[in-house]
């Protein structure tokens, strides 16, 4: 653990010293790889290596912009790495994610076939729950049962996650991952903030501690938001996360070449070694098949 923190410190100092140089170097050699171009190491570890972080909770947060590109990145990243993924996709349809994942080099349909991906399409599940026929009582209650009011907590959703990620004997995947897009929708559907936090807590115990997997969750937040329930959930999750990726729109408004800035916060203070959280800030531009990151003020349009 000491080795890892030293390495991280080295990275931080070298970056502050030669930030400008690195930025220019990265831009001089544009990478066409699907894996998001020049990406800081904190976002691109190899899950197979010993330095890989397991049992971690990553929070994706967006303000004044759309942070769903991070969800697509993590989905294709974990699938490519051979992990078993349970994706709770509440906001968009399966084909939307499939088409974007194909651009990033992964086929969701194929992953579903071979059992690597368990996909909960929230929209379809909700329709089945509300408009499904009465005779077809499935063996398992619907994961989104709380919408129709028959339950007030998210226990059914948690049971779904637990059963999909608990490894069976025939599984050879590298480690379970839970991906949620996006948690703020649950509040709009009638779940109380406490119920949402309970759900996350149960998932953390099961997925992160017991199964040594990772969790990645997307939430929306706004600076002067009046949605107090949402702010409560976001703040609580921030305190418990090991890594926070915060995509913000630029404070000065819309720009064609810089779509926003991303703050990467490594919660080293949680490890109780007396260290401060490490914060890195980059700006990014989203393109059709990848996202390019660069140091602040060094976008290709400026240089």
């Amino acid at each position, binding site marked *: 653990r000491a080795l890892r923190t030293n390495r991280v410190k080295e990275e931080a100092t070298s970056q502050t010293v030669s930030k400008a140089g690195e930025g220019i170097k990265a831009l001089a050699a544009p990478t066409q790889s699907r894996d998001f171009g020049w990406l800081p190491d904190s976002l691109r570890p190899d899950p197979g290596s010993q330095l890989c972080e397991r049992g971690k909770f990553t929070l994706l947060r967006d303000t*004044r*912009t*759309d942070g*769903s*590109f991070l969800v*697509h990145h993590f989905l294709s990243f974990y699938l490519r790495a051979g992990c078993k993924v349970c994706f709770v996709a509440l906001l*968009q*349809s*399966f*084909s*939307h994610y499939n*088409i*974007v994942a194909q*651009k990033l080099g992964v086929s969701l349909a194929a992953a579903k076939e071979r059992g690597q991906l368990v996909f909960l399409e929230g*929209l*379809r599940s*909700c*329709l089945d729950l*509300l*408009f499904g026929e009465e005779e077809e009582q499935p063996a398992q209650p619907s994961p989104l049962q709380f*919408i*129709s*009011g028959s339950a007030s907590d998210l226990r059914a959703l948690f049971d779904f996650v637990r059963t999909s990620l608990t490894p069976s004997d025939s599984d050879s995947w590298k480690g379970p991952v839970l991906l949620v897009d996006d948690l*703020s*929708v649950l*509040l*709009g*559907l*009638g779940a109380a903030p406490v119920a949402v936090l309970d759900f996350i807590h149960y998932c953390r115990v099961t997925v992160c501690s017991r199964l040594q997997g990772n969790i990645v969750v997307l939430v*929306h937040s*706004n600076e002067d*938001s*009046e*949605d*107090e*329930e*949402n702010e409560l959930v976001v703040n609580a999750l921030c305190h418990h996360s090991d890594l926070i990726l915060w995509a913000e*729109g*630029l*404070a*000065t*408004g*819309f*720009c*064609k070449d810089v*779509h*926003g800035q991303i703050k990467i916060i490594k919660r080293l203070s949680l490890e109780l070694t007396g260290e401060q959280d490490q914060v890195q800030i980059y700006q990014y531009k*989203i*393109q*059709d*098949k990848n*996202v390019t990151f660069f140091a602040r003020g060094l976008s290709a349009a400026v240089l």
Partner: protein
Amino acid sequence: MAAAPAPRGCGATSFQRKAAAGSRLAAVAGTRPSVRHGQLLLSSGLPSLDCVLGGGIAVGTLLLIEEDTYGLYSNLLFKYFLAEGVVCGHDLFVASAKEHPDNILKELPAPLLGDTYRNELREETTAVKSEEFQDAMKIAWRYQNLPKIETSPTTSTKFGHYYDVSKRMSPELFQSVKQHRFYLPEELSSQPEMKTWNMNSAYARLLQSIQRIIYQEGFDGSDPQKKQKTILRIGIQSLGSMMWGDDICSSDTPEDVHSLTKFLYVLRGLLRKSLSACIITVPAHLIQNKAIMERVTNLSDTVVGLESFIGSERETNPLYKDYHGLVHVHQIPRLNSLICDVSDTKDLAFRLKRKLFTIERLHLPPDLSDTVSRTSKQDLAEAAKLLSSGCGAMAIGKKHLDF
């Protein structure tokens, strides 16, 4: 790409990409495929709005209009959407709690077909152009030959149609178009009690009605017999207002905060799995609890806000004398892609000319007064604030740069 029924039947969503492009896509009248994300696009009835929204409204998505103060112009957009459906041969579903859908359908604007639109445009612009030809530029003569900047965004005209607001659409055009109606007072009296899923009962009935139409008419691809594919255009007027039995517009702490967002979520599911598109007008200016509007925006695909100058001090302001209000594009969806087509012009205004309603880039006239008076300086500052606010899909900046 087009939502042809997949072999699996009900499993198909309208976002499935088709292997063979071209011939099968053109089978649905009034649509064209988008270059960006391969979805079918519909026209909203207003070609300038189509341009701003990145080509049109995608099939399977929801267009949310935040009403202006008196609902005049949002009603106009609502009627344009339905009128476009009639001209293209799409089916209509009109839901309203205040005005009877038959009255709404009677008042649709008449389409300007063929040369009549060009004549209209020419009338408007000949007055202006004749002066311009007279003064050739004397000082900035190098700029003489540069192309004139288009104030109103234009697209190739085959896709959208223009409408004459002063005339009514003739009933013959309606004959081939199926119209479904949902008038809340009638529905409440006729239907017996049905399950409401912990939601406002009016919304629950509306959802059941929409789902029934989609299923019975085969818009979700469940009926492979249906050869003639068409789109269902759903229009819901003044959702969230008191006429729907919801008190979010009248009270600061409403009883049921979740009904509207639950409704939008289920509607989103219905739209995604069928060949349909929906326009909803919401009286956002009446909703006290801003948290609800934030959640509503997150659950909608395209969000456009209208702000009219009626009753505000901008009505008499000489800076805005050409326009009747402002258009704010709050959100444009990212469909099947990491990016979306955001228009470059963020400052948009609308005006209702004699017969035509257009959305244009906001042009402030130059400030030619010798002494800059206080009132105009304040307006310029407000205008600068407008210029720095951007589309929510990319970024919203609240601080304006003060030079």
